[in-house]
Structure formats: C-alpha cells, structure tokens
C-alpha cells in the first residue's frame, strides 16, 4: 500500500492560509494587542469533563513529571494578564484527544485573545469584525440570540423550566437517538444534544449568529449573572457561521476561590464518571489570587474559519498534515 506522505492541504491552500494568518496578525497589530507565545506543556491541565487531555512524561529538574498538553492557551495567557501584560493574543497549537472528523483534528490552532476592561458586548463586536475581515464576501448581518429563545423557536421547549422527561422525549425524537440510551441521561446531556444536533446546523446560514445567556451550568471559566427573566446564566457567547461553531468567549471569571471550586467540582464529576482526574493548575489560581484585571476573552478555531473562508469541505483541507498523516 502506498504511504500517504503527501500534505492534506494543497500548496496553493497553504499560501492562502499564510495570507489569512498575516491578516490576523495585522488586525491585532492595528489594535495594539500584543502577540505572545506561551508553552504548549503545563503542569496543570484542563479539568473540563468533556475534554480529553493528552500528556507527556518529561524528565525535569524535579525528576520525571507528567506534563499536560494544553487544550487551549487560556491558563498561561491569564497568568500574563495577571502579571500586567495588557491586551494579548496568541495563535496557539492546542490538543484534544479523540476529536477527529470533518471539523475536528486532535492537534489544531486556536486563536485566543484577551481584552482587559472590555465588556462581553464589546468583544462580540470585535470578534465579528475580525471574522468578517477574513471572509471573501459579506456573510450577512450579525444577529444575537439568547440560548433560551433558540430552544423556544426551534424546539418549543424551555431549557430552564421544561421537565427532564419532556426534554428526553424531544431530544430522542428530534436528534434521532434511541429513547433507551437517553433514559438515564441528565438535563445537560439533553440540552447539549439538542443544541449540537438540531439548533447549531441552522445557525449562521445567512448571517453571523451570536448566542448568549447560556445556562449557568455551562459557564466553564465565565462569570455568571441573572438574565432579564431572573435565571442564572453564563456571561458567555458563541459565534456561528454556516452551522459551524467558530468562537467561544467569556466575561472572565477573576475570583480565585470560585475558580478553585469549579476545578474541584470538575474533578469530582470526573471521579463519578470514572474518568482520570487532571492536575489543577495551582499557578493559575495563584495568579488569580494575586489579581487578574476584569475583562473579556475569546477562543476562535482559526482552522475552521480558514476552512469556511476558502470554501473547503473538511478541516484537513486547510491543514498541512492532519493528525492521521502526521
């Protein structure tokens, strides 16, 4: 059998990719956002229950240590913010084990940037401006949706108040999943399923769709606040184009003790699910303890944006070598 040594993207596509990357750097240069480079390896990792981290065993000055490959450059960048860096951006190699498909590659490039003093709305505007500047034609207007409103429109259920039994029924029917395999599943699973399989493919079709007011349980590293209906929601947004999730942004959590509770809860959930625990990033917590300026930050899957900008069918079409060929 022939060995597939050839690149997964054409050389012409790699030229286009380089041109778009140069535009990204120029965009931030114009706005006085500093480009930084932080380590891919870390002694702490992401505790996120739904991410599978890779790790490496390294011989360090303190003997053999398990070092985590980052799932995003968030922790190191936040330590720079706490040290007074001001606004920063990074094009960072990130790793998420098991994520392989038309829109996923285990190793990918994350464009992440942080804006001290920015409100979430201001960062949404900046993200949309950047995305528009990289697309070959106008994708349509920026349209904002509340998470709750999307469930009302597309599914006639309420993510906060509809009973779990009803959510399971709707999820089984609308996402073509067997009722048995949903029987033991919780509210979060049903909401994730409906959002990913039913709602997302319909977003960003003739517009840039921005979704806000996610349930508080999906806050991750974002602050929480009460929305106009009095529900606790995450201060978080997601941006979609052509049914593809492109960016995820937060009004950043700066409270060290709250952050520790979330990490600890994640690891408790990991134990419950029989998943390996991840070492909590003590240096990040110490940086938050010292004080990180309030502000907003966003992570954008730049490979996906390049894929959409160049009209390619699969992510590997814009990667020099996708993971199966690395």
């Amino acid at each position, binding site marked *: 059998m022939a060995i597939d040594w050839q690149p997964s993207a054409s050389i012409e596509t790699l030229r286009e990719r380089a041109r778009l990357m140069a535009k990204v750097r120029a965009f931030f240069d114009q706005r006085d956002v500093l480009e930084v480079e932080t380590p891919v390896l870390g002694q702490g990792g992401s505790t*996120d229950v*739904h991410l599978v981290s890779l790790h490496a065993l390294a011989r360090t000055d303190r003997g053999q240590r398990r070092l985590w490959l980052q799932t995003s450059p968030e922790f190191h960048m936040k330590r720079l913010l706490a040290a007074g860096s001001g606004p920063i951006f990074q094009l960072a190699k990130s790793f998420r084990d*098991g*994520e*392989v*498909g*038309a*829109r*996923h590659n285990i190793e990918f490039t994350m464009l992440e940037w942080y804006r001290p003093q920015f409100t979430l709305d201001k960062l949404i505007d900046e993200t949309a401006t950047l995305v528009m500047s990289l697309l070959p034609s106008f994708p349509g207007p920026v349209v904002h949706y509340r998470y709750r409103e999307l469930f009302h429109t597309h599914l006639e259920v309420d993510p906060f108040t509809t009973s779990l039994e009803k959510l399971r029924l709707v999820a089984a029917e609308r*996402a*073509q*999943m*067997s009722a048995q*395999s949903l029987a033991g*599943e919780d509210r*979060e*699973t049903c909401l*994730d*399923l409906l*959002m*990913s*399989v039913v709602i*997302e493919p319909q977003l960003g079709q003739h517009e840039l769709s921005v979704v806000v007011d996610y349930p508080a349980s*999906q806050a*991750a590293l974002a602050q929480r606040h009460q929305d106009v209906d009095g529900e606790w929601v995450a201060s978080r947004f*997601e941006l979609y184009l052509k049914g593809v*999730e492109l960016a*995820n942004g937060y009004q950043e959590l700066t409270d060290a003790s709250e952050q520790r509770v979330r990490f600890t809860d994640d690891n408790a959930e990991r134990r419950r699910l029989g998943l390996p625990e991840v070492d909590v990033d003590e240096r990040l917590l110490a940086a938050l303890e010292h004080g990180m300026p309030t502000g907003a930050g966003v*992570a954008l*899957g730049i490979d996906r944006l390049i894929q959409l900008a160049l009209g390619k069918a699969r992510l590997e079409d814009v990667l020099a070598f996708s993971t199966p060929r690395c």
Partner: protein
Amino acid sequence: MANYSTNEFKGGLKVMLDGDPCSIVENELVKPGKGQAFNRVKLRNLMTGRVGEKTFKSGDSLEGADVMDLEMEYLYTDGDMWHFMKTDGSFEQYAVEKKALGDTAKWLKEQVPYIITLWNDKAISVTPPNFIELEVVETDPGLKGDTAQGGSKPATLSSGAVVRVPLFINQGEVLKIDTRSGEYVSRA
C-alpha cells in the same frame, strides 16, 4: 459478535440496530467546544435498503452483525426460491427468497455472478453486476438509418426488465445495460 464503539464506526462496518443488520455509511463527530460529544451516524438497513441517520453518545457501542458478501452465479428458480452457487469452486448453493431478491429479480441471467449478502448464513439481498448483457425479446421494429440521437422506445429484455432503447434497436439484439440506473448503454 464483537461490540464496536462509536470511534470504530467506519464506512462499511456491519452492526446490529433495532434487530436489523445495518451497514455504516458515514460517521461524523459532533462536539461543542464546551459540552458532550455525540456521533451522527448514517446507516443503511440491509434488510430494507433504506438509509437513515441516528445519533449516539460518543463511546456508546453496537453489536457487530455477522454479515458477509459472497459472489455467486445465478442457476435457476423453482418458482418459490431462486438458487445461486458460490463461484469459489466449492459448488455450494444458496436458496434466496423473493423478498431478499428485491429489484434484482428483473436483472437475472444464468451464469452471471451476483453479490449475495448473507446475514447469519441466510441470504438477505442480491446485488447485480453494474453492467449486464441482455437480449431484446420484444420491441417495435427498428427504424432503419435512425442512428442519430433523438427518440427512444420501450424494449422488453430476456430477464423481464423493460428499458428505454434507441429507435434503431431490433428484437434479438443483445444490449449492455447499467443495472444501477436501468439505462441502455450500448449494443453488446
């Protein structure tokens, strides 16, 4: 049979779903940046031929289906069953029911090799070769000189199939037919 997890779902893998053997057509990971992973899977039900989509939680598994595709020549029918023989030199014969034969009934010709799909050693479907040569047993007389493009007419073939053929074709001629589209290709 072994169980297969969603990350092993590849095009062509045969699995059991709701009691029927299915062949996986496509498997796509759906994974939000924050949240759980699912797999959207397109499957062909091998009993009905229908293709449907299903969602699984990533990591869920399905039991493998004991399904095999074997090449066999068509021998004859006794009216109830259709008999085929393996082409591997074993002379082993399989009887196929009308339901399993499906649309292939109209493309049967002796000594032609077909792909027989077996599930637990029972024939569940018969796939004809992409191209087959069949004789015209009935059609309107050919129009002399009309070899240009243009009109067509129905012709009944020796297997019973009726296909559209060019006006110049005569009864008794042998034609090459594409069984996937049911269209005339050329004179054989």
